[in-house]
């Protein structure tokens, strides 16, 4: 349906373009004797006015249609004080699935009229969508045609339109951030009305599965005690720390070697090769960690008499560290290359060896940049999902033993939200609360990291 409308709009726009380019510009030429823009700009002007408003309306309409349908259908239920918002959502989902004949199980008889109403409403909305869009097209063509005949400067107007379209594209970045923050906040606030934010941030027991127990007497008590996120924060930090123990030394030394020692030829081969590590999908690392590294540590542990669980923080952390190596090494390499040559030459002329120069002159000079690189890598490690989901385990515990299973924020988000979920469940909302914690945490690290790198760049450029 929408595709047909889009194609129709495009056909209209195209014909407007040719109409404007030939007929309209000719007409103006005859009436005024001279054009103030090239003929094609008249075409662009008409085509833009024909297509853009219609497309905008189409997008807005499509996205808001169901919202209004829902509002109309549910207005009957709103009078009933026993039905709260969550229940309303549930009823609406049922009505939709009955209407689309996807409802499984016994169909509630009282909802059938609503399902029929839903279908007829949808039909009406589709028809009115068509009507509105095509009247918009006609109206805007008429309007722009009138404007053109008034000797409007077509080129300037077209350029203005192009610029504003570009601005809208750039502004999508802002909308995305807003969308993320609002959607996460919206669900998190619902969650924090059930579970106090302090309990969430300082509780040490995480077992959301128990929130399902819907016994009237224990429900509230349970919900209060099962959403303590400290074990998740600890697990996230712990695994990220193991990863950094691998990534920082290897990445740092690789970066230093590539920047200071390696010949141009070696560098040209080695740098892309290491960067391949960052290009491999994380799910591949997860598979490797779960199927090869985990069992490897397990057998290794058996040989030396240690008990290693097959899903361990160590396996996940080490594999994650390998993934992060290129983030550290490439940025270190860039940062060291940005340090001016004069510093090196000064040090060499005093008789320092290359390693002494690197350690005592270059690294201190490049330190802010390197710290920035490491911080960016930390934020990668914290937000990494697939490796920990597949290799780190699910049990939330406050352990400092890297050989035991450990769980992270991202793992819990995935575990909670995999499969069907209902939005009125505190468990689902807890996932969003975890999401917003993760978002802000990584955001803060990123801002600090980007600022330090930027400051460093400004210092030497």
């Amino acid at each position, binding site marked *: 349906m929408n595709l047909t409308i889009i194609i129709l709009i495009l056909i209209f726009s195209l014909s407007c373009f040719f109409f404007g380019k030939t007929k309209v510009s000719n007409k103006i030429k005859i009436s005024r004797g001279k054009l103030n823009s090239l003929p094609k700009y008249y075409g662009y002007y008409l085509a833009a006015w024909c297509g853009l408003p219609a497309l905008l309306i189409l997008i807005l309409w499509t996205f808001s249609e*169901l*919202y209004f349908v829902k509002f109309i259908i549910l207005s009957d239920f709103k009078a009933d004080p026993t039905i709260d918002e969550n229940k309303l959502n549930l009823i609406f989902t049922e009505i*939709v699935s009955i209407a689309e004949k996807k409802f499984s199980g016994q169909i509630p008889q009282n909802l059938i009229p609503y399902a029929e109403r839903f279908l007829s409403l949808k039909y009406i909305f589709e028809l009115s969508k068509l009507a509105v869009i095509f009247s918009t097209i006609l109206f805007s063509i008429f309007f722009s045609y009138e404007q053109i005949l008034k000797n409007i400067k077509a*080129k300037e107007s077209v*350029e203005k339109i*192009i610029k504003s379209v*570009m601005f809208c*594209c*750039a*502004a*999508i*970045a802002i909308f*995305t*951030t807003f*969308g*993320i923050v609002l*959607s*996460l906040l919206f669900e998190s606030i619902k969650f924090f009305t059930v579970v106090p934010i302090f309990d969430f941030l300082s509780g040490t027991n995480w077992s959301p599965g128990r929130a399902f127990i819907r016994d009237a007497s224990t429900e509230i008590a349970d919900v209060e005690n099962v959403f303590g996120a400290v074990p998740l924060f600890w697990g996230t930090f712990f695994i990220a720390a193991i990863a950094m123990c691998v990534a920082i030394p*290897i*990445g740092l*030394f690789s970066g*230093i*070697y*590539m920047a200071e*020692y390696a010949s141009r030829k070696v560098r040209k081969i*080695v740098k892309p*090769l*290491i960067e*391949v590590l960052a290009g*491999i*999908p994380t*799910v*591949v*690392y*997860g*598979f490797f960690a779960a*199927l090869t590294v985990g069992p490897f540590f397990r057998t290794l542990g058996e040989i030396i008499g240690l008990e290693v669980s097959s899903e361990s923080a160590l396996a996940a952390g080490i594999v994650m560290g*390998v993934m992060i*190596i290129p983030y550290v090494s490439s940025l270190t390499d860039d940062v060291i290359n940005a340090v001016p040559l004069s510093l090196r030459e000064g040090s060499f002329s005093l008789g320092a*060896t*290359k*390693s002494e120069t690197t350690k005592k002159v270059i690294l201190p000079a490049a330190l802010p940049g390197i710290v920035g690189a490491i911080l960016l890598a930390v934020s990668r490690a914290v*937000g990494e*999902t*697939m490796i920990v*989901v*597949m290799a780190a385990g699910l049990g939330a515990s406050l352990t400092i033993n890297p050989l035991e299973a450990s769980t992270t924020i*991202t793992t819990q*988000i*995935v575990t909670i939200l*995999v*499969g069907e979920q209902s*939005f009125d469940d505190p468990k689902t909302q807890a*996932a*969003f609360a975890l999401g917003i914690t993760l*978002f802000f945490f*990584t*955001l803060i690290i*990123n801002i600090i990291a*980007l600022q330090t790198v930027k400051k460093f760049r400004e210092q030497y450029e």
Partner: protein
Amino acid sequence: MNSKQKEILMRKRYSAEKRFKFFGIFSISLAILFLCILLFNIFTSGLSAFFKTKLILKINFDEKKLGINMNTPDEAIKASNFNEILQDALLNLDLLAPDLKKIELIDIVSIDATYELKRFYLQNKDQLNKIVEISLTLSDDLDQLYKGNFPRDIPEDRRRFSDFQLKVFDEQNSQNKIITEFNFSFFKNADSREPELAGIGASLIGSLLTILVCLILSFPIGFLAAIYLEEFAPKNKITEIIEINVNNLAAVPSIVFGLLGLGVFLNYFYLPRSTPLVGGLVLALMTLPRIIIPCRAALKAVSPSIREGALALGASKVQAVMHNVVPLALPGTLSGTIIGLSQALGETAPLILIGMVAFINVVPTYPIDPSAVLPVQVYLWSESAERGFVEKTSATIIILIFFLVLMNSSAIYLRNKFEKKWS
């Protein structure tokens, strides 16, 4: 300080120098070693999935047992039962088998075998009432055994096939009745609960559709946004906010975009769950900043003299950018876009959250059909207990890596071919 002490000091300094250099080489070799182990591991365990083991069986297409004749229309043949002739042929493998073992004999081949017979017959209707040798897919346990992925010398109760099945299998093998052939069905079939039938057809198409949606949305928007930010944006607060947003969004964990998709696209706009449409939308939002940043770099790399030349000839700013700068920057922006898309292709977590982990056993055709994607297929199969899925997972990873290598090398090719040095 005498000369001896000096010499010792020098030696110390030189050995420190050597140590430092060695650490560098050691780290780089370690990183590359990891890469090699990873790839070697995946390739060795995955290559066998591209072949499948088949058993050559003498099948008697008996008219009476099939209940069909030469004139039976195709629909009736599709509805008829080929199980009986298959079972007869299998039981013929060991005529002395006791009744209890008969079911094990029948389990030697895959449950798809009757359909294979049906497909064969539909193409060779002249074989009615003849005895024909046909190769049929083996069950995945024996398939794994034949490929050497499963040890045969462990106790019977710890493997999924019995001693009796093993004996029959060895007999057939010694008569050269076991063959391997290229596993075309792996590329055609959708997911299945049976490892020998499961394929990546559905997830391949699903990935293609998802990336297509992502490309259609993210490239034009990202490119236009980059042009605006690089060429037209006035230096003011709004521009600054947009730039900060773009840079931060590029570093937001991908799972957060999944939450956005779930909370907004699915919960609020009621877009269809588990579809490439929503997957593409989410990935487009995620890829957008990763496209804007290289596109800006490509635009920046175009020499100012091009702009100035165009402006000097009387072009307006928009004309100068659109007619002169953009065509020169296009190859650079394309390679940036391809790299952004290759990251999107390997992305798993956000797609899991919008429900693309569902078990999909039909190949999708439109972006609004529920479907799986390659990386999620890897995740799904790796969680599954059956031994046969391990090689399938690795094979899927090989295909995924193949596409990534293809995309990245085309990006590098584009960059090298069209890279211009402005002097």
